[in-house]
């Protein structure tokens, strides 16, 4: 293990890590509850995953194998720079393979490969408060969480159904964790919501600008909000991946010309590449 000279292991100082670690432990003990923490200034701006990076930096050890994805891709700017950051300040091994990773930091996707026990999934969260579009006052939303008073969100879903015939939320679809706390799953597509339910891996969420950490322990019930007569339906583009032919993964749409031409490819680049290798 070699880490860049002049840096503490994992970039953050030990007092900051202790503070974040205490927040993480309380977050795991109260599934879905947002724990405030003293978010630090990081060497990249808010919106680039500062919350996720601080959680990762507090959890990571020299034996970890780190994977970072941005919208499912291992090779986009955000993913590459965060992976390089931790290779530099923690000297850890990095990978693109979901199955090989012990720690996966993600922006807005859950890998298609099912996660297993022993893995930790760290989400980058822009807005941790699921109620903020309905109630902008933080003091009010905290009271609503305390009372488990989530009527506002049910009304919002009902109004969607009355207006459009279905719930018009395609990402960041609100979930109930362990039947108690309403939680924002970060802007993952609603397609990924079912993967959170009873996932064997530990899920940690970090919001740097909003200074909140929350968590879902392994094997914990995560239910997407719905109604008996309008059950939750995960949606995906009705197409096959034009690279690997997959019909059951989440797809990105690529516009190919000005005349309406388009094609779809898997959002999860590791999954798509593995499938093509197997098929060859």
């Amino acid at each position: 293990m070699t880490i860049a000279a002049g840096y503490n292991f994992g970039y953050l100082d030990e007092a900051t890590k202790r503070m974040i670690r205490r927040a993480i432990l309380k977050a795991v003990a109260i599934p879905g509850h947002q724990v405030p923490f003293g978010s630090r200034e990081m060497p990249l701006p808010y919106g680039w995953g500062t919350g996720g990076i601080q959680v990762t930096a507090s959890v990571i050890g020299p034996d970890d194998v780190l994977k970072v994805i941005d919208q499912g891709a291992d090779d986009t700017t955000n993913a590459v720079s965060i992976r390089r950051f931790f290779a530099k300040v923690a000297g850890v091994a990095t990978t693109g393979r979901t199955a090989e990773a012990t720690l996966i930091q993600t922006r807005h996707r859950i890998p298609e490969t099912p996660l297993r026990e022993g893995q930790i999934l760290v989400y980058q969260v822009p807005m941790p408060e699921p109620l903020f579009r309905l109630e902008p006052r933080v003091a009010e939303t905290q009271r609503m969480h305390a009372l488990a008073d989530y009527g506002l969100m049910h009304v919002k879903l009902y109004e969607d159904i009355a207006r459009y015939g279905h719930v018009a939320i395609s990402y960041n679809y609100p979930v109930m964790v362990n039947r108690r706390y309403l939680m924002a799953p970060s802007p993952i597509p609603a397609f990924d919501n079912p993967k959170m339910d009873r996932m064997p891996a530990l899920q940690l969420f970090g919001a740097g600008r909003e200074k909140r950490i929350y968590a879902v322990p392994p094997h914990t019930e995560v239910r997407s909000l719905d109604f008996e007569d309008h059950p939750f339906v995960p949606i995906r583009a009705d197409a096959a991946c034009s690279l690997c032919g997959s019909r059951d993964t989440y797809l990105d749409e690529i516009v190919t010309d000005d005349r309406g031409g388009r094609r779809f490819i898997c959002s999860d680049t590791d999954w798509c590449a593995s499938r093509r290798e197997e098929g060859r």
Partner: protein
Amino acid sequence: MLSPGFADPALDAQRCFRAVLEATSRPGRVQRLAEGVLEPPAPLGLAAAAVLLSLTDADTPVWLDAEAAPAADWLRFHAGCPLVAAPGDAAFVMACGAMPPLDGLNAGTEEAPHESATLLVQVAALDRGVTLRLSGPGIAREHRLRVAGLPPDFGLRWARNGAGFPRGVDLVLCAGAALAALPRTVRITEGDG
């Protein structure tokens, strides 16, 4: 003479934290710290001393019971944490003797349940004694944990702690180099059933 703290403060604290994180996310699974990461001050065992050193500092008031009090100087020197006189004022409560009453500890508030105390209890053993059957978040179906050294009415006290959810105290059991965690969401039935 005080014994030294972690040989490698960054990496040893990280390993200890990961053990506590694993224990908290999979309640009842016993984690074992590597022997020799530090010389625990009597009467603390390795796990209790390492957890306190990994998680406490100037921001966390700590309460030690009378049996744990001989470790006060070590803890104050290495962690720099304030030691408080009343268990209700502490963020971390360390008990080497009888488990203190849970309802005397800070359980947080309905709006800020994360402000609650974490209770560390040093028990006689985590591989013999009464069998606790655990269920709840972090547990697929059921985990079994054997503990020697908990009070006979522990099940009742724990049920009362869980009834106030989201308020409540989180428990870390330590025995030598082994530790197991019982976050407030865990439900316990006793016996081999």
